[in-house]
Each structure stands twice: as C-alpha cells, then as structure tokens.
C-alpha cells in the first residue's frame, strides 16, 4: 500500500549504512574530522585530483577500475586508478609545456569520453581551473561562457569544434590553445588547434602536483540567473572534503560499490558525483557514452552489476514511460541504492522504484552554488515521497523570509513557506561568481546563503520544495536563464520583444516556451515560427533553445518596462494572474 512514509527496517539494507543514526552523526560531525579521513591537515596543500587519484597509489585501490567507459557500441574501456594517475599526470604535463599555469581556466566541451575525465583531473593537478561545458550547448552559450570565464585552453572533439567553436574562435582572443580529440580516435589536423593525443604521447609520465591550497580555485561551473549573463560559480580545492562526506552519507558509497552517476560532466552533478566523489571513495564508476535509452540502461545496470545508482527525475520518468515490466525483465541483484537529483522527484516516481526494482528512489537536493548534496533522503532514513529529505551532517539549513529592508527572518514554525537558506561554512560552498561580486554578495544575508528555492519544513525536519523564487527555468534538471534565450530571439530581425518561461512538462519538469511579438512588416505564421525556432537552435543548441514559440501582439510589461514572465506563465497554465498592479495598461 502507498503510505505517506516509506519506513526502512534493517531488512531493507544490504550493507551497514554509513549514516545509521542521523541525530548522533550530526552531533558528532565536524568538517575537520572529515578532512582528516582524507589525510588533510590545516595549512597543508589540498588538491582535488591528488586526493581523488594519486592518493590511492601504493594501496590495493590502485589496481581497481576507476572508470569503465561504455561506448555506444557497448565496447568497454577500463581505466584503473594507476592508469588514471598516469594519464592525468601526462595531461598536466601537456598544460605545463604549453605554459598554462595555476588559476588559468581550462574549458572542457565533449561527450562522456575518457579524454574529458583525464583532462579534468590533469588540469586540477596542474593547479588550473576546470570549467566544464555541456556539449549540447550551441555556439552562443559556448562563446559567452568561454569569454566570461577567460578561457585559456579548450579541450574538445574535432566534430564539436567544427560544428560549434570554429565559427566563434575569432571572437575569443584570450583562448590560446584548443586541443582536439579525433572523432575516430585518429590524429586531428585542424588549423588553429593542436592534436591532444600527439601532445599526450610526448608528455612525461610523472608530474609534481601543484601545491594548491584549500581556498584556491579549482572548478568553475556556469549557472543561469533570471537576468543578465550566466554566472561562473567558483569552487575551491577544499570542496573535496564535502564531495567525500556527501558521497558517504547521501550516496552511501562503500569500497566495493560499482557506481553509476548518469549526469553529464557538463553540469555540476556530473563533475562532483560523476568524477570527484566516487574517485575519492576509490570505487568503480561506469560512464555511458551514449544517450538515454531505457533498455540499454537496464542492460548496463545488469551487466555491470551497478550497486549505487545516481540519476535524475527526467530519466526516472522516461523509464516509467517504458514500463515497470521492462525493468523487471532484468534481474538486478547487485543494485541496492538509488538516488535522484535535479528537480523534485514526484511521489509516484519514488514509489515506482519500489515497483520496478524493489527499491525506493531517494531524492536529494543541492545546486551549482552548494557544490555538493545538502539535503537528502538517505539509505537508513524513512523516506517521505515528494520530500527532498533532511540536511546532511555538517549542513545547517533553515527557512527564512526576506524583509523589505534586505534582512532575513528565520521561520521556526513548521509547515510555513519561505526561502531555503544554508549557514555558511561547508567546504564546497561557492566562493564567488567570477568577476561578478555584486551578484555574489546578493546571495547572502548575514551568514546565510539564500538558495532562491522556496520550501517548507515539516515537523519531522523534512524539507519540501515549493518552487523557485525567480523565473529561472529548470528543464531535465538543468537551469536555463530566460534572459539568455530572450536575447538570442531578439537578435532575429523580425522580433520586437521576447518573453521566455518554463512550461510544466510531465517528463522533463519544464520545457522552454517563448512568446514573441513581431516588428511591423512581419507576419506571424508557421514559416516564421520555424525560422525563429531554427535561428534560436543554431545559436543556443538543443539544450537551451525553446521547444515552442508563440506569437502575441504585445507582451505584458510592468510600468517600468520589464516583461512579466510570471504573468505569461500564469496565462499559459490557466492560473489566476496574481498581483498585476504593476502591469502596464493594455497588456
């Protein structure tokens, strides 16, 4: 029977959970002690890649498979910890030989291929800053992020370079080196670029890891706001302690696990939990280079004996569409823990896990700025389907109301809606938006980081997602800034104004829908709709471009001239229009 709580008993757990007694573990937890487990001491160098890879050399983990890549044709390539240490050292050597140093930005743009993981870890060893990009971005989001991030190096594939970068390379004078991976594994020969494999074969096997400190910049993850350009969230080497602790508590990683994080490293989940956390734990990760396919996914879970699986609501809902029967056709005796992140997991999906796998799906919550999982339904904890769970050890969360004067008031009473806030001090907290100090400062109220997510907390301490405090769109778990989409549409000569919203969708959460009004002389119609769609897709790529475009005679604006996206959304959903007192007459 479907109850409001899924109670856990000892028989639900195949292994002893890392977080057994929630209250005791929270009381006894300190970040210093968590760091000490990784061998860290105050004032000593900290380097994410050294901790994730080199630390295992000379231990039995060195010979274990670190990453198992599964190509589209399902051929495997296993890379052991020892081999990963060697390859990442070579890549670090490549960077050093090119004169690329500490703090300089190395951007990565590719699918989930071995070279991406090697480059990420090698760049970290070199003290350079890793900035991953999603390979489904179009040229415009790529150009914006490379420019904002002051990219010095770009690692990409030959085909992605030709399709998305060659046309914008001239606009990026600071980009000194573009290193290409050949599409068929062969060497590349493209003007203005270097062949990565050739450079790697000339590099030394040994590399002295840069002595980075806990507060040195390690990763730059771009995220989107409601207005303005994307924001590059700065993360530091000390974040590794949080990746380690959360991998242990929220994902319940044990040394013998085979772990599958289905997220793409172009997004923060695919870096924090697709690369760093499992390596810190010395477990084997599988990496699927192909796109989602229900049957294939079940086959991989089965063939590779995945024990811990971290996926996303969109994927779960696509699996649900394919039916529980397909899941049950595969016996998955090794699978023991399933977690999900990206957007709230609906209760039906949590329960569907029970039906299909005999395991509930554990939702958790975090965002680019937090660097790691903050709130989670954990292995030993009762699950409240639809809830994001409870704050992990080391994380202090609360619900706040913002006052008009900019100060915040904590809401202690349960069941009251407010903004989710987190007390500063966890190691993976972002340390800035690159070159945008004012936007960074606005995220804080005293020592609280304000997440922009509206939530409520129940009497048992479980948090429940209510909505976003702003107009950011969440599609397949990825944030899309409406402004970025509107700007691209506005570049088309026919468009007078554009307003972009997230339209609720049962599978991907929200899809991007654009409303445009046209300049005089242009006629709304199917031909123009297709032209605008193609225009937006060429610039933005499939992951960001609208799925739907509607024409309006004029867009609703406030008297101060801002497009009222909220009103467009309410109208789209047939909801009450709310407070329209600032609406300009006639819109």
């Amino acid at each position: 029977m479907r109850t409001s709580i899924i109670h856990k008993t000892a028989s639900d757990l195949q292994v002893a959970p890392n977080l057994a007694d929630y209250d005791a573990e929270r009381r006894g937890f300190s970040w210093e002690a968590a760091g000490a487990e990784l061998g860290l001491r105050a004032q000593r160098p900290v380097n994410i890649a050294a901790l994730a890879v080199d630390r295992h050399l000379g231990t039995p983990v060195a010979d274990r498979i670190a990453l198992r890549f599964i190509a589209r044709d399902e051929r495997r390539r296993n890379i052991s910890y020892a081999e990963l240490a060697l390859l990442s050292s070579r890549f670090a050597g490549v960077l050093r030989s090119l004169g690329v140093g500490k703090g300089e930005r190395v951007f990565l743009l590719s699918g989930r291929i071995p070279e991406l993981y090697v480059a990420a870890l090698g760049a970290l060893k070199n003290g350079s800053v890793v900035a991953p990009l999603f390979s489904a971005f179009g040229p415009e989001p790529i150009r914006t992020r490379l420019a904002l991030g002051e990219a010095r190096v770009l690692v990409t594939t030959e085909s992605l370079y030709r399709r998305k970068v060659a046309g914008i390379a001239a606009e990026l004078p600071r980009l000194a080196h573009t290193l290409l991976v050949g599409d068929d594994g062969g060497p590349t020969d493209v003007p203005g670029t270097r062949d990565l494999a050739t450079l790697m074969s000339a590099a030394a096997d040994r590399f002295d890891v840069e002595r980075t400190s806990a507060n040195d910049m390690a990763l730059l993850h771009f995220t989107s706001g409601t207005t303005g350009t994307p924001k590059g969230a700065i993360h530091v080497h000390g974040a590794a302690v949080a990746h380690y602790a959360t991998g242990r508590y929220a994902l319940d990683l044990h040394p013998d696990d085979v772990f599958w994080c289905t997220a793409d490293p172009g997004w923060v989940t695919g870096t924090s939990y697709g690369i760093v956390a499992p390596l810190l734990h010395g477990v084997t990760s599988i990496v699927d280079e192909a796109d989602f396919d229900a049957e294939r996914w079940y086959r991989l879970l089965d063939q590779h004996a995945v024990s811990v699986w971290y996926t996303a609501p969109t994927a779960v809902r696509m699996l649900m569409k394919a039916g529980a029967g397909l899941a049950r056709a595969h016996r998955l005796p090794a699978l023991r823990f399933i977690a999900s992140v990206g957007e709230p997991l609906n209760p039906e999906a949590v329960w569907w896990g029970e039906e299909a796998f005999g395991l509930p799906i554990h939702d958790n919550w975090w965002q680019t700025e937090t660097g790691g999982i903050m709130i989670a339904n954990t292995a030993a904890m009762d699950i409240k389907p639809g809830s994001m769970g409870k704050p992990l050890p080391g994380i202090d969360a609360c619900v706040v109301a913002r006052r008009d004067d900019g100060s915040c008031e904590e809401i202690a009473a349960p069941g009251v809606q407010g903004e989710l806030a987190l007390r500063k001090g966890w190691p993976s907290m972002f340390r800035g938006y690159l070159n945008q100090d004012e936007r960074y400062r606005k995220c804080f109220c005293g020592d609280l980081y304000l997440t922009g997510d509206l939530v409520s907390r129940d009497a048992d301490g479980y948090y429940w997602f209510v909505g976003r405090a702003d107009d950011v769109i969440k599609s397949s778990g990825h944030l899309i800034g409406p402004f970025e989409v509107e700007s691209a549409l506005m570049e088309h000569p026919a468009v007078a104004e554009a307003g972009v919203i997230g339209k609720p969708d049962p599978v991907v959460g929200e899809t991007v829908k654009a409303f445009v009004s046209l300049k005089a002389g242009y006629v709304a119609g199917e031909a123009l709709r297709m032209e605008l769609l193609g225009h937006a897709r060429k610039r933005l790529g499939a992951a960001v471009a609208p799925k739907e475009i509607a024409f309006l005679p004029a867009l609703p604006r406030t008297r101060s001239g801002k497009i009222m996206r909220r009103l467009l959304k309410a109208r789209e959903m047939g909801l009450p229009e709310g407070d329209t007192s600032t609406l300009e007459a006639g819109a």
Partner: protein
Amino acid sequence: MTMGTTTEADDPTLRQAILETLQRIAPEVSPREISPSRPLRDQVDLDSMDWLNFLLGLHARLGVDIPESDYRKLVTLDDLLRYVSAKRRG
C-alpha cells in the same frame, strides 16, 4: 550493419517525409548536409526530448508504430528509412 538490397532506402518520398518531420523539430537542418549512414544525432543537435518528439512525429505522419524497444535500432537516416518501409510493407 549492412545496407541490404532494399530499394525502399532510396525511396525519395519517404526520405523527404522523414526529413520534413525532422525539420519540424530542428528547422535549422539542411537535408543536403545529412549523411544517411552516420548517426543522426551526431549531425543534428537533438536532445532526448527532440528525439522522442521526432519519433512521435514519424508515427503521426507515416502511421507507423514505433515501440520504445525499437528506438535503439534507429540511429541513422538509413536505419529509419529501412525500418519505416519494412513496417509499412508488413
């Protein structure tokens, strides 16, 4: 995968119908640039939702049922041509 001896793969009407359905999702595509034997999603920027909508569009336009278990067989334009013509024949 072999090309086989089918002539349907060269059926220009069917090819055009498939490409037009693709263009409903991705209007930026120029059919001349599509290589029929290379994976479509390597050539056209399609996310999972676009791909699903494309296959649903084929169902709506051509009346062929494409069960989810067949999705993975459909990688290239040639795959689609062969699949759709076989279904319509059968």
